[in-house]
Every structure is written in structure tokens, then in C-alpha cells.
């Protein structure tokens, strides 16, 4: 046992004590801020690889943005990505950031079904469906449960059987080949149940939008409870997003 003790001592405490507070390092791209500076808007919109930039006023749709930052390199006076990772919301419209706004992205409280907080506030079990996910989205969702982010302490956990869960988390642009399996899995989850879209690919198709290999008709059939943007979504974005959906958060 002696070697294990040494290893354990070195391992120490790994968890982030306050999951709502850490700062992410480096040039991490979270919520963008768009200034009111006048620029060639057509050129700005044109350079976006996924058509996430709108004109008059200039907007960035985080549901389409793959966080490449090309707009901020070409027009640094216009677009700046902050490291604010709390960008998940339950309203598709709130993912669209407009020029002149530096407001945080919040959930629309009026849209949260009452049973979500009463039933899932202290225990939320989720079934993940990778439907064309590139394995970064899946990697980050796995990381949410690792000793660093440790979302298990909030009662949030991924489980194997949809029968034992309270909702699904979809990653990937939803391929034709996974369309039937996605529906079958959702049907197997007992009601009431959640649908969470994790990652830009799931929200809009991302760089794969428009591919004839996709079938996104599932999303037309049900309301989505949470959009978690990112390419892939950062674990802090996911954990904080889910917490603000199922619990009343302070501040």
C-alpha cells in the first residue's frame, strides 16, 4: 500500500470547489462582445465559415458559431470574445448576441417547465446520444463527471439505460443513420423528460449544416430545454447551464 499512499498524497484534492466561479485560462472563446464600431459588414459576415454573423445590426449566433475566432482576427475593433463560459440558455433567440450588448446570457425563466425544478433540482440522470458527434463533445461531457468538474456532487450523472434517466443530451449534427436510434432512445425515457443539445453541431449542424447525410427532423418534433453552445462545449458551460436549468441559481 505504500506506493499508493504516495500517489494519493500527490494526487491531492482535484475538484473545483465553486463550479460557478473559476476563470478559464488563455484565449478561450466564450460570449462575444460586438462593439458599435462601423465596419464593412458584408465582408465581416462573408468570412464566417458557418454563416453565424448577421448584419444591421451585427449579430453572432452562438448556435451556429464554431468559435474559430476568424471574425475577431479580421475585425478586432468590432468583435472580441470574452472568457465568459456561461453561455447556455433555454431560448434559441438568446444565443444570438447583438452589437453593443455586454449582458450575460441567461435562461428565460418563464420558459422553464415547473416540473423541471421540482423533480430534477437535486437529481438529474441523463442519457447521452452521440449522433454524428466528433468525440470532442463527448469527451467534454465525460469530463463533466471527472474529479475536476465532478458534476456528480450536484446529482447530475450520465446513465446507460434511457429507462433510468430524466432526459437526453444530443451531441453531433444528427446523422440520417442515427435518426431512428435517436427517436427510439428518446421514446424509451419516461416522462417528464428533458432534451439538451450540447455543442454547436447539435444546435445548428455547425460546420456540417446542409449536409445531405443529416436528418434533423427529430428536433422539429419536440421543444428543446437547453442549448449548450461551444465547439466543443466547455465542461463549465455544460455544468453551469444544466444547474441553472434545474436549480434556482443565486445572482
Amino acid at each position, binding site marked *: 500500500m505504500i*506506493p*499508493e499512499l*504516495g*500517489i*494519493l498524497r*500527490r*494526487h491531492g484534492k*482535484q475538484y473545483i470547489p465553486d463550479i460557478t466561479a473559476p476563470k*478559464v*485560462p*488563455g*484565449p*478561450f*472563446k466564450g460570449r462575444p462582445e460586438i462593439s458599435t464600431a462601423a465596419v464593412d459588414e458584408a465582408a465581416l459576415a462573408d*468570412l464566417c*465559415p*458557418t454563416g453565424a454573423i448577421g448584419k444591421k445590426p451585427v449579430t453572432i449566433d452562438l448556435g451556429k458559431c*464554431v*468559435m*474559430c*475566432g*476568424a471574425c475577431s*482576427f479580421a475585425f478586432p475593433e468590432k468583435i472580441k470574445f470574452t472568457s465568459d463560459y456561461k453561455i447556455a440558455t433555454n431560448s434559441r433567440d438568446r444565443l444570438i448576441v447583438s452589437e453593443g450588448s455586454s449582458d450575460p446570457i441567461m435562461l428565460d425563466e418563464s420558459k422553464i417547465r415547473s416540473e423541471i425544478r421540482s423533480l430534477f433540482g437535486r437529481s438529474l440522470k441523463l442519457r*447521452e*446520444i*452521440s*449522433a*454524428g*458527434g*466528433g*468525440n*470532442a463533445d*463527448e*469527451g*467534454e*461531457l*465525460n*469530463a463533466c463527471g*471527472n*474529479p*475536476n468538474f465532478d458534476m456528480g456532487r450536484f446529482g447530475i450523472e*450520465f446513465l*446507460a439505460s434511457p429507462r433510468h434517466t430524466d432526459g437526453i443530451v444530443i451531441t453531433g*449534427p444528427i*446523422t*440520417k*443513420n*442515427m435518426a*431512428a*436510434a435517436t427517436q427510439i432512445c428518446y421514446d424509451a425515457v419516461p416522462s417528464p423528460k428533458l432534451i439538451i443539445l450540447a455543442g454547436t453541431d447539435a444546435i445548428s449542424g*455547425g*460546420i*456540417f449544416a*446542409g*449536409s*445531405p*447525410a443529416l436528418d434533423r427532423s427529430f428536433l422539429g418534433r419536440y421543444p428543446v430545454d437547453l442549448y449548450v453552445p461551444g*465547439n*466543443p462545449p*466547455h465542461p463549465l458551460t455544460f455544468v453551469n447551464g444544466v444547474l441553472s436549468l434545474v436549480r434556482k441559481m443565486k445572482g
Partner: protein
Amino acid sequence: MTAVSAVIRNQGVIPLTRIPVVSYPEFIRVVDELMTGGLHCVNYFAWAEGDMLKFIICLANDSDGTIHLLMHKSPKRTGLQLDALSLQHYQLHIFEREISENFGVDFTGHPWPKPVRYAWNRADQSKLINNYPFYKIDSDELHEVGVGPIHAGVIEPGHFRFLCNGETVLHLEIQLGWQHRGVESLFLTKPGLLQRTILSESIASDTSVGHSLAFVSLLESLAGINPGETLEMERTLALELERIAMHLGDLSNVNIGMAYQLASAVFGTLRTPVINYTQTWCGNRFGKGLNRVGGSHYPFNDELAAKLLDLMNKVEETAKPMADRLFGLPSFLMRSESIGRVTEAQTRLIGAVGMAARNAGVARDIRVTHPFASYRNHPIESQTLTQGDVWARMMLRNLELNDSVYYVRDLTRTWMDTHEPVSVPAEEKKLQLAADSFAVSLVEGWRGEVCHCAVTGSNGAIVHYKVKDPSLHNWMALALSLRNLEISDFPINNKSYNLSYCGFDL
């Protein structure tokens, strides 16, 4: 009679007219001669041009760093029949299956002419993914176990069908395609350079750096851009960081499968500072955004270099005591030795690459045999084990982790001594790609050989783009490793390979 084929090197470009187009019998003869001589196939694919179907094969010679190219062509028509080359060289089976699925070519005598990924533009739309023709054995004694496409964990989808005699697996058939997003056709329909670069980062996002490096190198060779040594060093550092992070993740995952919580936690949490470092560098934990054609938005700097040296110390100091303990534990050895064994002969037969080759005595590593980026001037040593079992795949990761740490340290110091300014990425409108040409780009990603190929038309536009992830070869190794093994050994075996679903499905 000696073989006639065009010869280029890794990241080489050649006018299409210089690649010999031979009759199919001659194609078979030359390919047979080259492959019997030890060359392995890094790509073999077809594309349609007008009413013709053109085929090109790329065979790598690992002893002299050359890549042999040869073509044949046929009028495009339904029911086109060609003799299967897979009969002589089994490693071609997956390439012939893919050509058959995409274009309806009937490779006569092919041992299992089954669909590969049910691509959206497959020739026969009546074949459906939910109706795959699995092998069956008629027997009252045997049973089948079907798993997937959705698995227990948070992982990508695939279907595994086990033919079992009691607890023993007689055969595992792996059916993929669930992840098919139409990547190769998107390379043509999304023409922007940035779109294509991001697409390359998304082929298999756990290999973002590997696949995007293959892409930008291919484009640079077609555009005649020399990235320069400094940029190459930075790209090489990113590629080795990806290897370190993924190897740590896999060392953690296999230990979850073995219920050894301590090793799983130690290796798993050690991965966090590595990918957080990549985020400190480029804003993304998977290295997305780093590789761009002709330059970088995130040039390396002295502060990053110092942090990287610190990180490598941390990785070494943390991983080594854990690895020493793990590989000395009798319970770990019992669980991993001789489990999921694939022999050297099988490995050569199926054309396995990367770790799936090096764990069974086949020294196949593009960094050594067809060096690219900094591996040309700063050679790396590659490790080969012979056991071919779960233990070997774990030990290989441990050894490669150490080698990468040493290599990153050396290369970082070289960068500190020699670096020059790195330019911003090339402007798309100034890029002129070589017309009517063929280019091939090989990169040793953490799983193995990544291969990107492009064919250009008369104005230099890309008319065909071909991606090969190492998993295209290696899924067969996982299938073979399960034979005569208990079905309960599947999870650790699967984790010990950690192959790519989306890289295969494209």
C-alpha cells in the same frame, strides 16, 4: 519485370499525367508485386470524372520513405466487375468495399462485400443501415449478442454483434456508419478555405491536430508554400501534446474498465492540465484553431515555452510513479496479459497501422518512415512491442507518453534557441493550387496513420478529396482480438484500442 508506378514522397505533389494509368490486369500485377515486396496501402479510392471512373492506389514503402502511385480507369456503369485484389492482399478489403459501396463496382471473389458506412451518396440506396447483413451460424448451441449503436457510456455509436458459444466469442462483427456526416463531399461543397480547415478539425475531434495538420500540409504542398521550421516545430509540439493527452485519457479509461480507481483518477486528472495547456495556447482544449494554412493565429512564445517545460515535468513526475505501480500489480497483469491478443501475421494481413501495428511487432510509424514537419530534422524514436495484447497496448501508451515528453522538451528548447517570427495564415484569395495534380499527406496521429489526398482540376480547384483515418484499418484488429475470448473481456479490449467511429464513418 519491374513495377511501373509513379514515386513521390510524403506531402508530395505530382501532375496527374505523370501517374501511369494501366489496364486492370496490369494494375493487379504491379500492385501484387509491390505489396509482396512489403509495401502497405495507405489509400486506394475511386472518383468519377465525366463518364469515367478513375482509381488510384497509394502504396507506402516504409524502408525508403517513398509512396508509389498507380491508376486504372473504367467506364462508369452499373454492374462493373473487377477481380478482387483483396484475395491476394487482404489489407485492401476495406478499400474495395468502400469503392464498391460508393460506385457499385462488383469486386468478384471479395471475401465479404458488405456495406462500409451507408454513405448518403452510396450507389445502392436500397441498402439500409438498420438492415445490415450480419454473419450467422446455424446452431442450437450458439447465441448472438447485439450491442449498440448507442452504448452504455458517453461514446460514439457503433454496433457490435457477437457470435457466442456460451461465454466465448467465436466472432465479433462490427457494423459502423452511424456517424456518417458526409465529410468528403462537404470538402467539395463547402469551398471556403476556412470552412475546409474547420471541417478537417472536425473529422475526428480527438485528432483535431492530426487531421488538420494533414489538411494544411496538403494544401501547402499544392500551393507551393513552405511553412518554415518555426511553424513546423509549433505544429509538431501540438501534435505530440495531442498524443500525450489522448494516451493519458486511454490509460485512465482502461483502468476504469479494470475497476482500478486510483490509476484511472491519476491518469485522468493528469490529462486535464495537458488539454488546459492547449487551451492556454489556442483557446481550445482540443487544439482547434491552431493549424492554419501558411501561418498561425497563435504563435508560440517564450512564456508558453516555459509553461510547457513545467507541464512536461508535471506529467513525468505524476505519471511515472503511477505507471510503475500499475505495471507491477499482479491483478493488472492478470487482467491484461494475453487478453485480446492479435499476432504479427494477423496485423500485417489486415494492414493495421499506428499503435494497433506497433503493439504486435509491426514497426509502422509515419513519423519515422515518412517524416513530416519537425520529425524530418528532429527524428523521434518509435517503440514496438510484440505481445499484441491489452498489456502491450497499455505499455505502448506508457512508453510513447514518456518518449513524447522527452521529445516535447527537446523540441521546445530547440524552438527557444532558433525560433523566428511566424506569419499570419495565408489569404485565401492569394492561394493558387497546382492544377491537374494529385497530392498526398500522411501524418502519424496518436492512433496512427492519417492520410489525406486531393485531386485538382484544370483551374487548380479541388475536384476530389479523400480522408483516411487510421481506424479504417484498425477496427478489424479489434474484431480479431475478441476471437475465443470471454465476452466480458470486450470492454477493456475496446478501450485498449479506442478507435474512431466518426473518423471511419466520415
